[in-house]
């Protein structure tokens, strides 16, 4: 079961990526399988930056390949 924080990011990512939340039930499902391209990955980065008051360095953005990586990145950058 994902915790509340993970669930919050999941809902945010689903909204920005324009996919239904249940498509992200498996956090390791590849974004490319959900038609999340590099521009949508940038939108996801901007959305989590704004919500969690973090800065995602440019070099981290190509690493956004699935929800699990987004969650890990936010936790790491929030410290």
């Amino acid at each position, binding site marked *: 079961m994902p915790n509340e924080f993970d669930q919050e990011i999941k809902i945010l990512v689903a909204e920005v990526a324009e996919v239904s939340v249940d498509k992200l039930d498996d956090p390791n499902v590849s974004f490319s399988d959900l038609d999340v391209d*590099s*521009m949508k990955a*940038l*939108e996801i*980065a*901007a959305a989590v*930056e*704004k919500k969690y008051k973090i800065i995602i360095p*440019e070099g981290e*953005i190509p690493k956004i390949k699935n929800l699990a990586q987004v969650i890990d990145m936010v936790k790491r950058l929030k410290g």
Partner: protein
Amino acid sequence: MWDIEKIKTILPQREPFLFVDEVVEIDPGKRVVAKRYISPEEYFFKGHFPDKPIMPGVLIIEALAQTSILLYATIYPEIASAHPYYYLAKVKSEFILPVFPDDTLILEARNVKIISTGGIIEIEARVGERIAAKMTASFSVKKKNESQNES
């Protein structure tokens, strides 16, 4: 701040498709404010519309997109000076007031998230103090040799 000659070193567009006259404020990396006088002689007024000239909304979007490129250039001047290709990827726009001949558009672009290969920007067009249109847009940037490799 930036006159039309400086702007032409950054924007690839040319008349009659150049929709920025001057840049009047720059907060590097954060915000750019530009102006464009909408002359009664603009070519598009002849058909849009013959009896009631109104600036087409798609051209307001173009003016806002060009202003976004100028904001990008404040962050990545080296890339911008090499004249890459700019691709508008997504636009969410709202048109609030019509723009008429003799209006001066004030175009303000604010950085949401810009990286070397693209960005997300919030932009609005005002006439005086009134907001005529606003949009959130995303765009990508490809160096010319990268685009050639794709074709």
